[in-house]
């Protein structure tokens, strides 16, 4: 696996398009999970994901720490998603009709939507390790290399993120009705 630093060097110094595409493939699911909970619209999320990488590409030289790539992309994605979300909410159709409510796209099952929503609610540093580990299938060792963290720290972050996802999911479930006391 090529590190972020190697890929960045290839993009910046050698203008290697394949290297940037490797970065896109590495981080697009993380970016998608960041934008989806804000937009909840398949096509807008695709647009924002695309826009995030185009913007990132333009400003790639500003990224001083290659290991912060994931976090940096999350920030861009969130900003873009909020911008697009604001634009969508304030859009006034020309024909004078009421704007349509955002459509939840059938491309995502309910379970997928719930899970991506929950991932989107994780703090960025935890979302990144979850995305790299589970959505992209990197080993813990690879995640450690990509994030510049010790393997032990990555493991802890993953455990904490999993616990947080469990609690978030549990909270969704206990919303209806009030918890019931169990007995033997």
């Amino acid at each position, binding site marked *: 696996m090529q590190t972020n630093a190697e890929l960045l060097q290839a*993009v910046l110094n050698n*203008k290697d398009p394949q290297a*940037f*595409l490797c970065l*896109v493939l590495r981080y*697009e699911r993380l970016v*998608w999970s960041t934008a989806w*909970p*804000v937009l909840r619209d*398949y096509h807008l*999320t*695709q647009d924002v*994901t695309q826009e995030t*990488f*185009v913007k990132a*590409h*333009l*400003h790639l*030289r500003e990224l001083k720490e290659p290991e912060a790539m994931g976090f940096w992309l999350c920030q861009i994605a969130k900003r873009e998603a*909020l911008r697009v979300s604001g634009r969508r909410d304030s859009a006034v159709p020309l024909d004078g009709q009421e704007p*349509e*409510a955002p*459509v*939840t796209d*059938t*491309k995502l099952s309910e*379970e*997928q939507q719930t*899970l*991506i929503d929950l991932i989107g*609610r*994780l*703090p960025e540093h935890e979302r990144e390790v*979850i995305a790299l580990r*589970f*959505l*992209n*299938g990197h080993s813990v060792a690879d995640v450690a290399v990509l994030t510049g963290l010790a393997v032990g720290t990555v493991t802890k972050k993953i455990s*904490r993120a*999993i*616990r*947080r*996802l*469990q*609690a*978030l*999911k*549990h*909270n969704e479930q*206990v*919303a*209806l*009705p*009030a*918890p*019931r*006391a*169990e*007995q*033997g």
Partner: protein
Amino acid sequence: MMTTEDLETQLECLAGEWPAESVADAVAGRVKSETAWPLSGDDIAPEVLSSPSFGPEARRSYFYPAIGLLTTCLAGIVAAAWLLLPQTLHAALQQSLRKSNSWHVTIEASVDEGSRRGEVWFHREHGFRTELDGQVTVDNGTKSFTWSTTAEDSIVLLRPSMDGIAMVAEMCDLSRVPRDWKKQRDTTLDRLVGTEECSAYLLVRNEQPGIPQGAQQRMIVLVDDQTRPRQMIHQTFENSEWKQQRVIAIDYEHSVPGSVFKPDYPEGAKVVDVQSALDERFPLSAARAVQQKDGLIFAVHDLVPIDDGTWYSVTSVRGTPEYLREYPPSKRRVNLNYSALDVAHQMGSHGSAGSGTQLLMFQMEWQGIDYLWRLVFWNNNLRPDHGAGPGKLRLPLYAAHMHPERQDSRGVQLATLVDIDVPVDTDKPLALEDVIARARLDMKLAGHVAGETGALRVAISMRNQTVDFVSFDDISDAEYAKEMLKARWQMQTGNWRGDDPPVDWVATIPDADDVEPEPEPMFSDEPRELQPKVTGTVVDLDGTPVAKAKVIVRLRRFSKKNDGEEKGPGPWSAVTDAEGRYSIAPTGTIRPNHDEVRIRVSADGFADVDAYEYEHGLLTGEFSPVELPKGRRFTGQFVNADGEPVTKAIVRFQSSNADLSVTWDSGPFPVSRDGTFSIRAPINSKVAAAVYPVQYAPRFVEMTEEEDQGRILLSKGVSLKGRVVDRNGKGVPKAVVGIRSTDHLVLHAYVVLIGTAVRTDDNGYFQLPPLDGQYELSVGNAMADYSQQMMLTGDAPPMIEPITIDVSEQSSKDLIVLQE
């Protein structure tokens, strides 16, 4: 709570079926099209960067047109990208189709009985035409006409225009070729497609040991010199050879005569506009009866007697214009043609909740209106002699509100119940088959309207539980009537094994006197009188009665207005007799949706149990039996750093044994005035408590083997303030801030954590109780407060990400800001 393994499996499944197409090729196109190699000061002089013609705005102004121009130039590159990148074949096909002005697609598939063939023609100026399985669709860009060339009834369905490219991509069903199939060039398969020399690529499913021979499959993709897919051949490996399953051929820039795009449906065919068909079939103005309540309009469109004593009804519910403005419905995509609007959902009659007195035939939502077709029978609330006056029948209807704000203090959807008096003619009952035929016509129309995926099925169900599914086209009226009779027999006899009723079985209607009156379920907020005497039993886990057990029954009355609980009637206490029976004489009323019944039982040698009981018991006069596990006592005292007792605290114990056969929760209760507690918990279990003291930090306490746990120290903690703000920095009022400890205790089945919630004031500020340790703060409109075992609810805030704070690193002067 979901286990770690389950969650990890779900994440892995999500990765395996990732719902989004890769943006890599699109990004590739864009970064190529823009001047845009990563900019640096070395590349461009600063004055140029700051000049209006090279600023971000200027770049945007030429960027999008540039994309348009470059799209054509890069068509080949982008289309080729799927060979190099993990873009799906489905996406690659869509891209190629969208770039062409006209095309013709043929799809041939082998099926058991022979082969199926479908064709699609497209022209950017004229629209598209599809022919598949005897069904023709012509779409001229503004309207779409669909008709069958084989059906006896000549009906043409008129719909708004559809996305033909998305439709043909769906027809090709390339989702079976996931992105992780291996892609490889195979020159031996190169050949002519039409007159064009095409290069062959093989897509092979990644080798997986153990895949049976018939399941091995591959796709041969022949691409032209512009690297557009021209032919796709799907094959499976059977009997030592590759067998052709599907062939999809695409002819780009195909010359198509304009006549192909004319809706040449049979003369005399009836054109049904699906947008207005249901409105025309069941106009509100022609309803048999209409009633409005809580912003919902209930309508009875059809109500006829059947000769076996049942009734056939078609009813609907919709929102008033004012209601829809106040609670705008959300849109839910059902299929390509149909998005449902969730306003309210009918749920059968309230008389059906207890013993089952209806068969739900069919339900659908169309443009915000919920329609329900059903058979109603031997219902004590639904009889011709019910007090609705001569020639009328009182039909009870209820519907659940779907808007998230239409929920009660516990987060349960509110429901509205109405009794509608409907004029009926009981003289001429119809046969069940006639009614079925009438229903089928409606269902056919509904199926046309909503599209097969969404609606073309007949469900026979009761008590909201589906008993059987019957394919609509595979069943005759007589067979359907038989299914309904069977379902009714099952319901009446309680035989759920799927047996057929005896041939001589005749449905009967019990006399009104024979039907046990049942309480109305809790779907309205109206207070209900309690039974004067309510009895119950207490037994051990073997079912042996427990004598001399102390029983306290209390009502927890939740109130949104008063921010939690308010005083209700009770409590009532009793002691069990030798048979383990007890009785109480409650007075007052119960408020469904706002009250919760709790039965606390304590007996020597057993664990103290705080059992949740549905409201039902207080209305029928009989509680469910309470089971007590064997127990042992724990005592202790909460003190502060100076050794003084902490007298105000709520404590909640939980326990579980190793095989999870006994799980137990004491429910929250206050400590004594001297800070002591005494509780009996199940034996052979891990026991722990979460303590929520006033003016001290909450904490966990794991019980040791000793009975006396001694003095348990509570720390002062730090009380923090915070603010919830939107993206403009404005405070968000009435949002609920949930606080969860990031640490927890695991007791086999239980995960004990500290969790409570507070609400923001009018300016978005909130005050946390004293805390110690690390906590996660999240914002929502409802968060669980485990110290009170309830949900705290508020207004829906904007989306705000949770944050984690370490209280030891915070000062009470800090302001924690949670921002949108």
